[in-house]
């Protein structure tokens, strides 16, 4: 287990040494997002905007217009909801080279409760033209995302987690925007993951295997643009299950269903938060209670296989 935000913050700080155009913004939560690590090393390139998330996004757009590469941080729900219109107008529509970093994705700020949970951010951000959406699955991917996102010419929403999350990838993990990866191959069902539930997907695949069901496990680190070629390939098995720490409306489930409905109609089951708000509590227990347990993934695979 590794704390994703810490790995991200260190990578951001390290990247600051090799990229002088990198500037960092935060909205009074730099200690939480870990952008404070960058501030400590490069105070002149760090701008604290106070509790003014919408203005922070616009300020970042202005910095990008002048050729800098701004990474703007706050909690995911604030970026996707309070700052949604600035994101639409000044980042997505104006196509400014802004990197929006939503810390505390999903239920990861678990004890602070539903006001601080982000269960609609992927739906909002995915609907914005011009905007790429990247969701690391573990600390290694989060660290790799810094350079990947910074080198990409164009706006990106990068969704992180507050939590300690299971390690899946090795240090030095490469990340290619727009490409998914296959972690396990099986002929019966394809589990398509987006985010930190990846290790739960692998556990589910183990349990299924013990019951004679072989599952492919795909990780879609880039939610948008979705790796449709890979999705269509793994959907050949005839049953797909999507897994995300997000509402089942509009996120990965929606993206996968849209693609398959268009190109290869396939039974799909979605694992995620049902159309509901959640509650405060310990993180792992919340994931289990609100429909994202290993057992839920197993059951969804069986349901998808049943057609």
């Amino acid at each position, binding site marked *: 287990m590794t704390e994703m935000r810490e790995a991200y913050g260190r990578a951001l700080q390290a990247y600051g040494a090799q990229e002088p155009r990198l*500037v960092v913004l935060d909205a009074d939560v730099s200690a939480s997002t870990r952008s404070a690590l960058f501030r400590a090393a490069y105070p*002149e*390139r760090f*701008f604290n905007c106070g509790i003014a998330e919408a*203005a922070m996004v*616009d*300020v970042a757009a202005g*910095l990008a*217009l002048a050729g800098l590469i701004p990474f703007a941080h706050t909690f995911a729900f604030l970026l996707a909801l309070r700052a949604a219109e600035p994101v639409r*107008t000044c980042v997505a529509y104006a196509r400014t080279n802004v990197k929006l970093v939503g810390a505390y994705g999903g239920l990861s700020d678990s004890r602070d409760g539903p006001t601080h949970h982000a269960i609609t951010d992927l739906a909002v951000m995915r609907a914005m033209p011009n905007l790429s959406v990247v969701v690391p699955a573990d600390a290694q991917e989060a660290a790799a995302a810094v350079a990947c996102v910074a080198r990409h010419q164009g706006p990106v929403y990068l969704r992180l987690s507050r939590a300690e999350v299971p390690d899946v990838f090795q240090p030095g993990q490469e990340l290619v925007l727009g490409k998914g990866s296959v972690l396990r191959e099986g002929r019966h069902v394809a589990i398509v993951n987006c985010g930190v539930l990846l290790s739960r997907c692998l556990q589910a695949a183990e349990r299924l295997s013990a019951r004679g069901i072989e599952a492919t496990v795909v990780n879609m680190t880039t939610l948008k643009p979705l790796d449709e070629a890979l999705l269509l390939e793994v959907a050949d098995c005839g049953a797909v299950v999507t897994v995300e720490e997000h509402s089942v409306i509009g996120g990965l489930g929606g993206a996968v269903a849209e693609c398959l409905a268009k190109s290869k109609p396939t039974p799909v089951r979605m694992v995620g938060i049902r159309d509901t708000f959640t509650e405060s509590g310990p993180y792992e227990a919340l994931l289990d209670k609100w429909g994202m347990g290993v057992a839920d993934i197993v059951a969804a695979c069986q349901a998808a296989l049943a057609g």
Partner: protein
Amino acid sequence: MYPESLIADLESRARQLRRDVLQMVHAAGSGHLGGSLSAAEIMAALYFQHLRLDPQRPDWPERDRFILSKGHAAPVLYAALARRGFLPLDELRTLRQIGSRLQGHPDRLKLPGVEMTSGSLGHGLPVAVGLALAAQLQGAKWRTYLLLGDGELQAGLIWEGALMAAKNHLANLTAVVDQNDVQLDGPVHEIMPIEPLEAKWRAFNWNVLMVDGHNVRRLLESLDEAEQVHDRPTVIIARTTKGKGCSFMENQARWHGRAPNDEELACALEELGDD
């Protein structure tokens, strides 16, 4: 310091911008006249005298940056850009048509010379803060300018940006408020009062200059004065008349976003005269 001949020339250019705007909005059949007409002298002072620009090189790195925060005044921006040589005059007739670079509100990706996409109110100031911060960080000499509407000052985003500009001592940032006291639904002082405006900006630690927004000489002097302040941003509150130059449009909220018919256009052009 500015010769009378220059002032007369800029006044003439302002009248030209008004004629352009009327014809564009008439041809398009829609668009925002009132707030374009109120800003004609401000735009003339900026685009034909004060701003350091090169129409041959719209992306010249050392240019001053201008953001039209009140993006609905796009017609007067397009007219100024065309008269300054950024686009052919003929193209003004394409305003709001399919395939045109002249969108209903400015689109930076479509038209060179448009520094930032705008139209949704409130964004210009915080975006300008980002530009000014970048110039400050890079030790660049260029300055950032923006034109705000007074109704727009009702948006919280403006004041979030104002706080940040003052915190960072952005003396390289000059905002102009086109205070015409009319917004879509009626008089600004009735819809949502923003006064005392001068005291508000001072309380936000800005340098504040009050000026008659139709007096080109005072506008130029204020823009220069702003450059002599080195510890804080400046806002020039320019008192203007919405619909200025066309008597039947002046101070009328119904002319905020309406196009003139043939007779109204002829009447307005006659009032403005030829230069």
